[in-house]
């Protein structure tokens, strides 16, 4: 398998990169939906994540990659093992953050997991064979062309992504295991509507366009060609930049719990949601979480209006009630509301 194109070498796509960084700093913002033209490097950004992200600590030998720190959210196997070990301390290893591709056409048994046929046949043992959801635990699950995925699979993914737990009742096995992952879906809305229910269950949504600026496009071609011809050298050139991003993520995660939201900032953020008429509190919560993560990435101790404005389009644009007759897209409506609340242009 060839090495992925490095994250830092991707030209433009700032919104998408920011959304993914926010999700790695605070996975509780929910999934990321990426909409946009074809061939604009959506998959490239996602595939760059494994090499970029700092490794995570995991329980050694755990099939679900359980977090050693999260005692409450371990899988049954880890819990059982911990009973037999002094002070319940399981061995720990470093593991790369999983970024799992869900191909269209995957069947349900491969996604949620199923009875392990080999074991059943060899030992007559009813063992569970984890599926993609288990492999994606604590990482990312990527669905390209999410609007072409079968409806029942999408529902299943969203359900698990929201509860953080995969419950399997099939083939005579009854199993539940933690499955917390950031769902990243990409698609092109012009080729088949995304169901509205699907839209607002993603935490963030970004629109990817390719730049009209020729200089930037030339730079894209140049870098892509350098990578095509000699990937090893290209990677070495960009390793320093990727390390810097990695350090920024680690620092941001550490800082996140102490980032404050001043009352005035909170007030205006809520005002923005009210003006836009977003349904429920999910929009406000996501907006604040995303703003805090953005502040943490900036190295700030408190959230400012600037960060709220920065993340408002990605946190809110897909939560607006659809109005086909409104001028422009939902992005324009968010921009309008921002300038009304913050008095900027």
């Amino acid at each position, binding site marked *: 398998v060839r090495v992925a194109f490095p994250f830092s070498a991707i030209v433009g796509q700032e919104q998408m990169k920011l959304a993914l960084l926010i999700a790695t700093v605070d996975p509780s913002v929910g999934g990321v939906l990426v909409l946009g033209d074809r061939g604009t*490097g959506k998959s490239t950004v996602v595939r760059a994540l494994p090499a970029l992200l700092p490794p995570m600590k995991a329980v050694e030998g755990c099939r679900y990659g359980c977090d050693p720190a999260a005692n409450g959210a371990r899988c049954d196997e880890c819990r059982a093992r911990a009973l037999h070990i002094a002070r319940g301390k399981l061995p720990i290893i470093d593991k790369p953050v999983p970024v799992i591709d869900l191909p269209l056409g995957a*069947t349900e048994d491969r996604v949620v997991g199923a009875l392990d046929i080999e074991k059943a046949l060899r030992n007559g043992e009813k063992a569970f064979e984890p599926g993609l959801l288990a492999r994606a635990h604590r990482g990312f699950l990527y669905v390209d062309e999410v609007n072409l995925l079968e409806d029942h699979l999408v529902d299943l993914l969203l359900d698990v992504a929201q509860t953080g737990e995969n419950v399997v009742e099939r083939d005579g096995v009854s199993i539940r295991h933690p499955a917390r992952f950031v769902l990243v879906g990409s698609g092109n809305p012009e080729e088949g509507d995304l169901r509205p229910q699907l839209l607002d269950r993603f935490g963030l949504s970004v629109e990817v366009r*390719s730049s009209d600026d020729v200089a930037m496009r030339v730079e894209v071609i140049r870098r892509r060609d350098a990578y095509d011809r000699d990937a090893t050298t290209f990677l070495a050139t960009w390793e320093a930049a990727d390390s810097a991003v990695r350090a920024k993520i680690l620092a941001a995660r550490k800082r996140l719990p102490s980032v404050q939201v001043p009352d005035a900032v909170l007030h205006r953020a809520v005002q923005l949601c009210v003006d836009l008429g977003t349904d429920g509190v999910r929009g406000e919560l996501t907006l604040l979480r995303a703003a805090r993560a953005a502040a943490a990435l900036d190295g700030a101790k408190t959230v400012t209006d600037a960060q709220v404005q920065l993340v408002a389009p990605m946190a809110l644009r897909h939560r607006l009630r659809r109005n086909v007759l409104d001028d422009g897209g939902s992005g324009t409506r968010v921009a309008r509301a921002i300038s009304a609340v913050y008095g900027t242009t």
Partner: protein
Amino acid sequence: MVAASTVPPVQIDPGVARARSAMAMSVFAVVGDRIGGIILRDTSAGAQEWLAALRVRLPVATRMIRLPASATDDRIFGGLDLAATIATGSPVAERGVLADAHGGIVVLPLIERMPVATQARLGAVIDTGVAQVLRDGVNAVFDARIAVVAIDESDEEVWGVAAPLRDRLALVLDGDVRVDESLLPPAVVIEAARARVAAVHADDAVMQGIGALAAAFGITSERAARSALWTARALAALDARDEVTEADVALAAQLVLVPRATRMPADTAAPPSDAEPPPPPPPPADSATGEPPPRESPNDGQLEDRLIDAVTAALPPDLLASLLARAQRPSQEMGRAGAEKESWIRGRQIAARRGKPDGVRRLHVLETLRTAAPWQRARARDEVGQPSRSLIVERDDFRIRRYVERAGTSIIFVVDASGSAAAQRLNEAKGAVEALLAESYARRDRVSLIAFRGTTAEVLLPPTRALARARKLLASLPGGGGTPLAAAIDAAVSAGISARRGGTLPVMVFLTDGRANVARDGRGGRAESMRDVLDAAAKFRACSLSCVLIDTSARPEPMAQRVADALGARYVPLPVLDARAIAGAVTLARETA
């Protein structure tokens, strides 16, 4: 008679077309696996001749596999080998056609018949070079580095290759794809070019030229630009050169970029320097490529202009017009969006699902057996001591049949009830509605009617299938007054969207002369009204509703034609209105929706 407003088919000089086809074939033979492949848009037997000519120029060992559009997923990508699974008692993965073709060529005839999701998965295989199988108890990854020849026999006006795949197949040949064999290089030259191509040097001016061309033709895909670069390299390699030239870039652009154009290049004479271009984001080191940074020579702009001129000049003007029309027309998968719905009973069969058969859902016997197969030995062991059964199927094995069916159609009439001709137009529209309803009894069509006059548009007949009810409602339609066409288009958008939400395929039928004279705010004035009409039409078009506009004026009215174009509608002048002719036009629109 019925006349469509489509751009007439482009006549390209046959000699030029065949030379281009030969060039595309040579490029495909050299870098096909690096640029995804080629789309042959040909409804004649030309594609077969093209493939035969290609065959003899490839090494004998190169595999070339045909994949019918009806092939099932497990045959294409790989799946569970039922026979081996039953024989061994444990799941055995089976390679699909793509894995079999690894390192070779996959031919996709009648690509327009292949489901969009399958085409999208093919696109993913081209990207990653592997076929990933995650189904029916099998987790497997097979090497599948392939070059694709997709043969698209759909109408001139639409793409049959779905966008996810289209973006990954670099080369496009349109119309007559037959090659001039005398222009094809012999196999040894192709072989030499294959060996040489990766080392062909492309300097920074080449990258700038391709970037400028992509921007000029409004191509957003970065993949297309990358493929154009590889195509230019292949052309240089075929010519036994180690350096890409300006001419290579211009030719590559014709093969890769122009067929994807979404706009005409702006007049290159106009100075593009309305603002100084922002510098590219700084790479961390001096330069990512290890090459000197782009020089800011004043000639750069000239080179780009020269390229754009050269590429534009090489095209018959009609070709670009027809390409643009296609780019703006909803592609097939868009037109079909919402037109299919899942069903347990009828339609085209799709993958079976776990579930319990009942009165409505029917058991899929083969899929159920396939699911039960790996378990047979284990279950037989568990049942020791019980009377032996030759086949043990458990409830979790049950698979039920699923289908997608074409949704019924909603025909939405938008009738101009203004002015003097109102009475006649309405009468004929009523006649057409009745004719269609009578005819649609056997079908699952619904008909509704929106009339506009004075200052507003109103829904006179909500979607219905009931002939009697429609007759009663239509009996007393008022007429006369101004022409609020913009308001009517707005109303049509709402009606179309709600029909689509209801799971039917909307077909819009406008009956008007297109001469709007009432703006959205209810005030008169031709200019303002027309501006509102075009604005409303743009939104209508964005919803990709299939539409026909019947021009009801005594002689074809340019305004009506203009509105039809703005709506993305088929334009049908029908000076002598009669219900039967209207019904005919609508039937045509429905068949092609």
